[in-house]
């Protein structure tokens, strides 16, 4: 037993562990600063957010160490069971009393548990297990459907809470699929779809009118027209100029693609008018810079950017913030979704850059670990971890620095929230455990 423990510790990937611990503790001290109060400055106080956070970090590390003692096979074989348990939790949580308007939490004493945070690693485990099963090929339509359902079931339940932010994270699995052989065209198609969709919303939101030859109509109609022209041009461009050999063959694909683009624009316009609520519309308008609204919906973004900007090159110093902390509270959610403000204000551009570099190194390390696996399960699980963390990181920072609309998703290891840190820690420790036995596993 002792020998085995030694073995595991000896084989654990030290760079990843160190980066993980760095992020966790940097995160804790940022939470401390963001919710710091001069009235009770002690680090451990259960009345204060950072006291609870410290407890959760402790729990996470204990659970992490427990995971390191598990057998790799045991983890692999428990994948569906874990997935099932978490799925059940997602179902039950819908019947829990709403907190802040969402049925997302189990309340146990003064602690709350958010099962959607566990759904991230549970779904990753399930996907990894399924795709690593022998005979399963990503190219098969059947595989795609099953994977889709593995993702869609928890996704659907999460949407019912409702928690659209977390749902968005589930889209990150597309990167994993791509790595595992999903056609690049689909990824590319989705990429274009996002761009076309965002632009459609932009034109719709701008509500601008254009005047062409005396005809005045909405810019969004002009945009539609441009897409039609573009599709036709691309079609003829490809078929007659670039690849004359394929003349006629890609006809159907292009027509379908063009039609889908048009459909997308129409549905974006439709959604904008009929599905979105005013608050969503406002967020888009603020993000597109159509509004610099510092008191209404733009308030969060305005305050956040002010805090970040006020940090300057080297920041104001630890605990010296004047916008994003509990004392002044100019930045809302300063210890959760907007915690980056606190960091950026106190450590300035230099600190922000270091944070981004550490994060990048952390994610790159995860991908490196995933790539060196012989075990398909571990590789896929590694990619799932990297994709989810990347997605969180990208959307959270983009939102805070005003590059994306305000979407409520946390910055892993920084944002206050016990379930999140536990969930992410479990992912990292599973990966560390699986990686530590990579030499013992053949497939």
């Amino acid at each position: 037993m002792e020998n085995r423990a030694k073995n595991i510790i000896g084989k654990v990937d030290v760079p990843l562990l160190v980066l993980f611990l760095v992020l966790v503790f940097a995160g804790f001290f940022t939470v401390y600063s963001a919710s710091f109060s001069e009235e009770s400055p002690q680090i451990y106080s259960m009345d204060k957010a950072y006291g609870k956070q410290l407890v959760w970090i402790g729990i996470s590390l204990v659970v992490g160490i427990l995971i390191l003692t598990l057998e790799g096979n045991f983890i692999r074989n428990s994948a569906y069971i874990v997935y099932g348990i978490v799925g059940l939790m997602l179902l039950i949580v819908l019947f829990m009393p709403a907190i802040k308007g969402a049925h997302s939490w189990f309340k146990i004493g003064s602690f709350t548990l958010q099962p959607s945070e566990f759904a991230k690693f549970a779904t990753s485990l399930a996907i990894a297990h399924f795709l690593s099963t022998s005979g399963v090929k990503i190219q098969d339509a059947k595989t795609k459907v099953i994977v889709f359902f593995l993702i869609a079931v928890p996704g659907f339940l999460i949407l019912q809470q409702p928690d659209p932010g977390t749902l968005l994270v589930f889209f990150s699995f597309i990167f994993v699929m791509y790595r595992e052989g999903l056609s690049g065209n689909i990824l590319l198609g989705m990429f274009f779809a996002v761009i076309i969709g965002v632009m459609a919303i932009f034109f719709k939101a701008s509500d601008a009118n254009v005047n062409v030859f005396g005809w005045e109509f909405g810019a969004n109609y002009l945009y539609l027209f441009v897409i039609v022209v573009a599709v036709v041009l691309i079609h003829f461009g490809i078929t007659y100029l670039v690849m004359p050999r394929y003349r006629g063959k890609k006809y159907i694909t292009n027509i379908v693609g063009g039609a889908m683009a048009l459909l997308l624009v129409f549905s974006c316009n439709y959604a904008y008018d009929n599905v979105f609520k005013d608050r969503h519309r406002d967020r888009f308008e603020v993000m597109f810079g159509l509004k610099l609204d510092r008191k209404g919906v733009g308030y969060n973004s305005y305050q956040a950017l002010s805090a970040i900007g006020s940090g300057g090159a080297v920041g104001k110093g630890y605990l010296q913030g004047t916008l994003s902390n509990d004392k002044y509270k100019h930045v809302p959610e300063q210890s959760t979704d907007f915690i980056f403000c606190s960091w950026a204000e106190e450590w300035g551009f230099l600190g922000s850059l270091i944070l981004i570099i550490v994060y990048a190194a952390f994610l790159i390390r995860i991908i490196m670990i995933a790539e060196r696996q012989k075990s398909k399960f571990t590789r896929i699980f590694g990619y799932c971890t990297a994709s989810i963390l990347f997605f969180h990181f990208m959307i959270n920072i983009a939102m805070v620095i005003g590059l994306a609309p305000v979407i409520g998703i946390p910055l892993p290891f920084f944002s206050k929230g016990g379930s999140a840190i536990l969930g992410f820690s479990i992912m990292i420790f599973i990966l560390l455990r699986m990686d530590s036995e990579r030499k013992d596993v053949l497939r």
Partner: protein
Amino acid sequence: MLVVSLVFGVRLLYVQVLNDDWKNRAEQITHHEITIHPARGLLYDRNGELLVAVNQVYDILVTPKEVKNIDTLQLCELFQISKEEFLQKIEYASTGYNVSYKSSVFIESMSKEEYSRIAPNLKSFNGFESTRRTNRGYPYSVAAHVLGYVRKISAEQYEEDQTLGEKYYNQNDYVGVTGLEKVYEKELRGERGSAYYLRDYAGNDKTNLDETYAVAGENLYTSLDVKLQAYGELLMTNKLGSIVAIEPSTGEILTLISAPSFDPNKLSGREFSENYKELLNNDTLKPIINRPIYNDNYRPGSIFKLVQSLIAMQEGVITENTGFACNKALINCHSHEHPSNVQIAIQHSCNPYFYQVYKRLIQRGEKTSIFKDSRLGIEKWNASVKSFGLGTKLNTDIPGVKTGRIPDANYYDNEFPSKSNPYGKHRWAFSTIYSNSIGEGEIGVSPLQMANLAAIIANRGYYYTPHLVKKIGKDGEKRPEYLEKHFAMADAKYYDPVVNAMEQVVLNGTARGAQIDSLSVCGKTGTVQNETFNDHSVFIAFAPKENPKIAIAVYVEYGTWGGLWAAKIASLMIEKYLREELSEKGKKKEQEVLDAIILDKHSDFK
């Protein structure tokens, strides 16, 4: 991953390092500046009496952008205003040069009592705050024209201060607008202090960042004698005109009275606008005009004969003993003894005598052409007259001092009788301008200049620029320009006949009403021709004859003739100043003056 990191890095570089917008916005969010108004300096009279005091008042400020979630009804009730007024005030605070994210005055000058009633509730209204300030108070209610007043800076003045000035003022600051308040604004206002606070999202001040203390303004120690000023204003009740009294040995102004006057307290506090409009527009007597310095188109009348005598003797065109016949064919006159010398001529104010004196000054026979000769003569004469402070701007420390007019060659060449149709060069001579000889014609003077003339004669040949402030600050000094002697172009030796004549004017001549028992008063009456109504009554005097303590000029508009009202008022002022208690004769005179109502409501005053 790398692309995303790069994008984030660039964006952060822009937001945090390259661009200052967000830093400024952050400051706007967190910083709260509270202005600490310094106490404005006080004004004292020459005997240490408080002329201008300060009252503690409170302004309620509003920052329209921060007004949210308030109970408007409750607020209106608290301030006792209507909903319309409330909206109007908010509108006013967000438009024009008031901007909605900065605080502007919502209600000004609340008394301590009013403020203490609303203070406990003020905190519950977001966007409203109070600031303490001092307001002017005038214990004696006199000298409104001299003291001037203080009011909120005008949009134009603020703009000027921001663009061309020293950028000192805030939009809510109070500045001196006229009088000493304006001239000594910089000394009186002191230095503003401010406190910076960091505030939280709800607008509570949490941390004091920095504080600069306010420095109180300097006190002004004026030369006014408040009792004499008040007495003069009392005597001028129901009359139009001016009284200026100067201490000849220093040039310090003892009183500067413009009648009708008004209570300076009217232009302090919340009723400013109504009262100002009333004073400016609704009163046909135009009390807002400061007549002794601003009205410079009075002709000096016979008083000018004093100047003519002195210049003529200095220039050598006559001697003290030169006599001229009282030739009524030249210019009209009354019957009197033969003017065999200067003294008798002045004493009886002989018009033909001075016609001939002036002729000698203007046409000296240096040129054969009388036109060329007159041009030369008038230039010389003009320079001499100006040395008596006439036709030049006296640099008194009060705004609006006017120059008056002593005509010169250019004036007759190009401006008289009108600019479009002047006489033209070499087309006028003494015979055209002889009215100047007896102080009529084209001469214009202000009462201040006439009082200064009295001071010059009292001093036998020199004056200090009349001024109102003895020292700035308790240990301050007088401005250096007021310590400088200005010599009139007539030597001291020529003054004796003039002074003797002035003494005789009071004892036996036109100003017997100015006699004071056992005090030698020297004076000269003037009756200033006025086309619209009765002539103006003018009198200048100084006393005592030797070592004079007070020089005075009194103008009573429409007062008919010099000896009638002006001389009596001047003598009462002199007696009050030198003796404090009036004699029986003086009391009788006082009653006469107080009973007199001399107004012409229909005159079109310019």
